[in-house]
């Protein structure tokens, strides 16, 4: 919202500078975002006097003007026809700019150079359209300050209002605030009207058929209207407020709207059949041509203002072309109304019209201003001598406002704010804000009545805010609530933070990616049409195709991040993300949002250096990483078994399980997916359900085992086994036979090649034997080893490898 400093001072003659005023308003909750010096836009304008006008020898429609300026005489070419010798005009010299920022250069017109440009009102920003050059008063001096002459020696405060302060959308609303904040008395706008003897009812009648959507409808009739141009002061006010002049009558209604925050609509009364105004809901598919020239079809139910035959205005939103005020208009019905804000918002939104009126009606207005605004326009119209005013107002106030009353408890306000303000001080604040205090009741309490325009004041907390606002938020002392609770993370939150720390420590960097993606992503990730990962939460009206559904796996983000970096030639990466995925439940239930941990390794696993060569990552890097992570997270009995995941290589993917629960997946990326994402280096992906992981994690406090007192016996064993035998199987066999004497068994080498028959592989294990109570004897271990070798041969077709 734009607030003219000069205009504001007509209502509150404050001594504050624009900056001081801005600061005061901001600190009272009316945020001033910027202060614009209007005059700055007019600084480059000069005044010139036309000395001579000659037709252009080469162009019929152009004139050559000799213009006197302060420091000499110049030649300017113009197309305007309204000038004569002796006229004083505004102009811009080459190298300077127009108020709209356009730069002016010397220009040739058919061989003659124009050394500047004469300005019209349109070019000065004063009118939406204008013909001819603006002619200044004859007594204007060539050195005169144009901004002052035009009434634009002004500042504009750019104000960002919060939705609760709709009352401040009018100049008077801001003025009331300023008055309350400074104590300077408010000067209300003059509204006296000299009516003629003929009653309004002789000219027009009004009927409201839907009082719920239109609780108050009022009007005045203007006769012998002389539609024409507005005076300069009016144009300047509108310009400061960001509007352009149209004609005197429309300008006046806009002026009063800006002043009192009451949109007004003038109808050309003669265009309304039977001079009858009916306020009713629109019929289904009713058609109206709005004054922007658009033909609009209404779905029905929207409030319209109609004559007995046709809708003439979409109430509160936009008028019709047919009954618009034009140069030929001589009788006007001026509407001032209070429409139900919700209804106006819906209509404006459905029709995508953001008119000044619709915005204001939509935010909620003061019903008490409805008749006042009519008087104000009438007063100004008479002052400008552009109309006579019929006697009386039609005012159908079907649902008068019931004033709100709020108990005033100063002690409660002090308790909420943490202040010790006197009740009398609070009352003084309310008086300044135009709140009324009801007489004390028998128990000594007051009730407070906020003014009708303060729709936001509903209860005691609102009263507390008013007191705090005017007293000053920054006068309230900072205190500290008693610390009676200990702050802590829940064990599960700590678990998650631990996972994060471990991964960072293991060299993975944390990423954050979008929670949504599009259907296309499923194709790119090779996820089949009927796969469970496609069962996603979908948005009703997505922002875009790329944001149409919520992700069911974090691997989307991991792949996109790898791809983004690869495009920038960054191939060796280790990334992870901890975030939610979303799984739909029932139709109207909230989805499940488990926390997942996913990551990717790509390219070289180590940084190759002068002393160390590197290699590309593979499945076992991912698996080993997870083994370490799960160990740190105290997950016992983790099993990896062959698994399949559409994003991953079918032969190089494993599922993770613990105590029979599925925890996640690790694998090399599917070559198809890798290609789709333009990745050239190898990629290993993993994804774990952190919530599930937390469930299976050991939570008991760690109890230390005593350290061994007796020495171990170490044995290595190399076996040649058929390929199909899994490491787990053979280690199980060791355990079965070694029982409590086998402390550990570790695979330390694996070989396939020349020395081994095809279809077989050699595995070498390192076994450690030990018992708690005594030193083991070689013979005991020897017999276990023999048994192992025998059983391995029997059950797993193993042979001892000797070479």
């Amino acid at each position, binding site marked *: 919202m734009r607030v003219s400093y000069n205009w504001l001072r007509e209502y509150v003659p404050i001594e504050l500078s624009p900056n001081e005023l801005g600061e005061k308003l901001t*600190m009272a909750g009316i945020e001033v975002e910027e202060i614009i010096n209007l005059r700055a836009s007019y600084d480059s304008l000069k005044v010139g006097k036309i000395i001579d006008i000659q037709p252009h020898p080469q162009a019929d429609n152009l004139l050559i003007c000799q213009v006197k300026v302060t420091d000499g005489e110049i030649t300017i070419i113009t197309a305007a026809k309204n000038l004569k010798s002796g006229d004083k005009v505004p102009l811009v010299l080459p190298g300077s700019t127009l108020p709209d920022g356009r730069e002016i250069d010397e220009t040739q017109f058919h061989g003659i150079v124009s050394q500047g440009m004469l300005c019209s009102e349109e070019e000065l920003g004063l009118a939406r359209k204008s013909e001819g050059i603006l002619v200044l008063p004859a007594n204007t001096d060539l050195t005169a300050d144009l901004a002052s002459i035009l009434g634009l020696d002004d500042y504009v405060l750019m104000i960002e209002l919060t939705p609760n302060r709709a009352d401040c959308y009018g100049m008077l609303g801001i003025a009331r605030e300023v008055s309350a904040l400074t104590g300077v008395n408010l000067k209300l706008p003059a509204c006296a009207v000299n009516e003629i003897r003929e009653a309004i009812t002789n000219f027009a009648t009004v009927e409201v058929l839907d009082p719920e959507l239109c609780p108050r409808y009022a009007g005045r009739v203007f006769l012998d209207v002389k539609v024409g141009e507005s005076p300069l002061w009016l144009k300047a006010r509108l310009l400061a407020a960001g509007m352009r002049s149209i004609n005197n009558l429309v300008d006046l209604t806009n002026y009063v709207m800006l002043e009192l925050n009451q949109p007004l609509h003038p109808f050309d009364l003669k265009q309304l059949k039977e001079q009858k105004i009916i306020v009713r809901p629109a019929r289904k598919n009713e058609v109206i041509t709005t004054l922007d020239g658009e033909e609009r079809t209404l779905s029905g139910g929207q409030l319209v203002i109609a004559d007995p035959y046709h809708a003439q205005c979409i109430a509160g939103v936009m008028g019709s072309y047919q009954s618009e005020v034009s140069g030929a208009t001589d009788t006007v019905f001026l509407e001032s109304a209070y429409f139900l804000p919700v209804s106006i918002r819906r209509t404006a939104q459905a029709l995508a019209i953001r008119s000044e009126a619709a915005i204001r009606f939509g935010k909620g207005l003061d019903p008490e201003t409805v008749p006042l605004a009519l008087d104000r326009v009438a007063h100004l119209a008479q002052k400008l001598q552009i109309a006579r005013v019929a006697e009386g107002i039609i005012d159908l106030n079907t649902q008068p406002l019931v004033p709100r009353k709020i108990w005033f408890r100063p002690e409660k306000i002090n308790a909420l704010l943490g202040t010790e303000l006197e009740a009398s001080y609070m009352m003084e604040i309310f008086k300044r804000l135009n709140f009324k205090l009801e007489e004390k009741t028998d128990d000594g309490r007051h009730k407070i009545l906020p003014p009708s325009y303060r729709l936001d004041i509903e209860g005691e907390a609102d009263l507390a805010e008013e007191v705090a606002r005017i007293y000053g938020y920054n006068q309230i002392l900072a205190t500290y609530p008693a610390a009676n609770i200990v702050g802590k993370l829940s064990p599960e939150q700590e678990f998650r933070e631990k996972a994060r720390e471990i991964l960072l420590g293991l060299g993975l960097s944390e990423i954050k990616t979008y929670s949504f993606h599009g259907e296309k992503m499923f194709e790119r990730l090779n996820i089949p049409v009927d796969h469970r990962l496609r069962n996603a939460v979908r948005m009703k009206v997505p922002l875009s195709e790329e944001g149409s559904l919520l992700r069911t796996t974090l691997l989307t983000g991991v792949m996109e991040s790898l791809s983004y970096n690869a495009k920038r030639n960054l191939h060796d990466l280790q990334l992870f993300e901890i975030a939610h995925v979303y799984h739909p439940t029932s139709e109207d239930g909230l989805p499940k949002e488990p926390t997942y941990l996913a990551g990717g390794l790509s390219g070289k696993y180590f940084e190759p250096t002068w002393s160390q060569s590197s290699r590309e990552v593979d499945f076992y890097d991912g698996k080993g990483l997870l083994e370490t992570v799960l160990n740190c997270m105290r997950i016992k009995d983790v099993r990896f078994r062959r698994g399949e995941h559409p994003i991953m290589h079918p032969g190089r993917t494993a599922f993770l399980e613990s105590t029979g629960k599925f925890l996640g997946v690790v694998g090399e990326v599917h070559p198809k997916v890798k290609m789709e994402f333009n990745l050239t280096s190898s990629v290993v992906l993993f994804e774990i359900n952190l919530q599930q992981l937390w469930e299976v994690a050991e939570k008991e406090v760690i109890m230390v085992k005593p350290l061994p007192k007796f020495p171990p016996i170490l044995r290595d064993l190399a076996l040649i086994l058929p390929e199909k035998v899994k490491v787990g199987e053979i280690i199980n066999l060791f355990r079965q036979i070694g029982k409590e004497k086998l402390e550990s068994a570790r695979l330390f080498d694996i070989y396939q090649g020349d020395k081994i028959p095809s279809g077989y592989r050699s595995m070498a294990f390192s076994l450690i034997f030990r018992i708690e109570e005594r030193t083991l004897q070689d013979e005991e271990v020897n017999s276990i080893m023999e048994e192992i070798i025998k059983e391995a041969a029997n059950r797993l077709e193993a042979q001892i490898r000797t070479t």
Partner: protein
Amino acid sequence: MQTELKDILEKGLKEAKEALSSQELSDIRLKFFGKKGLITKHSRLLGNLAPEERPLFGKMINNVRQKLEEYLTTRAQELQTLEETAKLERERIDVELPGRRPRRGHPHPLQLIIQEITATFLGMGFSVAEGPEVELDFYNFEALNIPPEHPAREMHDSLYITDKILLRTHTSPVQVRTMEKIYPQPVRIIVPGRVYRRDALDATHSPIFHQIEGLLVDKNVTFGDLKGILTVFAQKLFGEERTVRLRPSFFPFTEPSAEVDVSCGCQGKGCRICKNTGWIEILGAGSVHPKVLSMAKYDPDVYSGFAFGMGVERIAMLRYGISDIRHFYENDFRFLQQFQ
């Protein structure tokens, strides 16, 4: 014999002095003291002498032996020191070549901010609460005093899943969910999390961003307490020398409401960051609206409280001098790498 011994001593001392290595020295030692060594040989000759001569010559031999041995020991130490020094010299490497670094991951800047803020509030007795990102309209709006068709809904352009379910537009629904869960206990929580708005992506807007919400509900909580807690917080985050100011504002679920500004690092001189105002807006806050308390069963005549909320991206951008919000979600490694 006396002369001979003198020669032996001189020869031994000379050879020992000229020896260049410990090995050479031990050869010399053998030459003189070994079974067939020169001194050993002379010692044996002692038996051939007349008994009265023996003490004198015995003394002489001992003298020679002692002197030579002493010198050999000294020389051995010298040589050892030299050899050790030479060995260390040979082992010299180029310490300016790069080391073999264990790899270390980089934390995400948003997570750093969330962790820092969380730590600050944990210290002030707040716990971390969480809630669903896909939320009921009821919790996102209605329970926060934003009924259907309320103009304040326009401040939150939302992404709906169904008519009643949407992506939460702020972390505030967790206020209500928490109050419902722990009524009538006092509440002291912060809520970090993702929120969603129907905003097209550009340098300063993202359809997804992070907020941290705070809520304190108890008996006798005042607006002054809000100011106290937020002052501690802002000074912890931005520096002890900063000051905090509150400006009246509007949120449907707080009353009175405030925008909270922290003084700018330029100390009021005016700069690009504070747009020459000397103040930086960091969060919105206010006393919990009585309607919100009532809806969660807390009697507003007994309980009061305050809530606050801030954008994590905004704070991270201020803290690290990041000018484009997209950096947070692109995960360009050259960006991530800068955080430790």
